């Protein structure tokens, strides 16, 4: 397989493609979940996951069979997310809309409140912290793998995860997801704007 891959992109290899496709299909639920945590919006997340899936398919010749395909596809999805984010400011708007929808959900007394509170808390984290926490805390990746996906040092991932945990705890303690919809919505807007400034200032 490795020899086939080394021979180049142009050469068709149906058996290898079929194997790749099986692996890719199995990863779709994971790509959807990662995309959902990045965008905080189900529709935008599926668009992103589909784009990432097709980019992975188109780049299949450059994937070395037998290596970590989940990490490879997550890297593609993450790159796609940030390149779209750079192209427009759509994302901050989506974050805002998703946050407002979550606030509405929290107003529903029958909703599983604790989960919604955590969803909203996640949405309030700077994206670097959120993705690090999600990859390590929910995606099942080792720090080293998360570092590769995020294209940063292992120590950076560790510190982002640790800061994310502290921030999330603080957000939940402070009750910034307060049930007072309007006030919380405004607070959310300013926090998201601040997070946006911080991440774009890097």
């Amino acid at each position: 397989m490795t020899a086939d891959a080394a021979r180049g992109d142009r050469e068709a290899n149906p058996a290898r493609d079929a194997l790749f496709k099986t692996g890719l299909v199995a990863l779709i639920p994971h790509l959807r979940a990662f995309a959902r945590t990045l965008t905080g919006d189900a529709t935008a997340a599926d668009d992103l996951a589909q784009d990432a899936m097709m980019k992975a398919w188109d780049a299949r010749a450059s994937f070395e069979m037998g290596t970590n395909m989940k990490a490879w596809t997550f890297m593609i999805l993450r790159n796609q997310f940030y390149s779209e984010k750079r192209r427009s400011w759509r994302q901050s708007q989506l974050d805002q809309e998703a946050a407002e929808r979550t606030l509405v959900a929290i107003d529903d007394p029958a909703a599983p409140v604790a989960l919604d509170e955590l969803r909203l808390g996640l949405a309030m984290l700077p994206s670097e912290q959120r993705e690090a926490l999600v990859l390590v805390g929910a995606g099942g990746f080792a720090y080293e793998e998360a570092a590769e996906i995020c294209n940063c040092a292992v120590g950076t991932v560790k510190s982002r995860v640790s800061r994310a945990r502290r921030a999330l705890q603080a957000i939940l303690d402070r009750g910034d997801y307060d049930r007072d919809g309007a006030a919380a919505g405004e607070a959310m807007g300013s926090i998201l704007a601040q997070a946006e400034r911080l991440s774009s200032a890097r």
Partner: protein
Amino acid sequence: MKKVSSASAPLDEARLRQQAIGAKLRQIFDDVINEPVPDEFLEILRAADNARAEPEP
């Protein structure tokens, strides 16, 4: 003995709360993983695969 338990209590509480957050975080992620995949995903992948298998004449 009493001193030790009172000093470690806040630490234990903090650890328990982080564990609770971790469990909920995994639940949020796993809930999406367990959703049925929309047909569209497999359709566009199949279309791309067919386009490769049957190149234009």
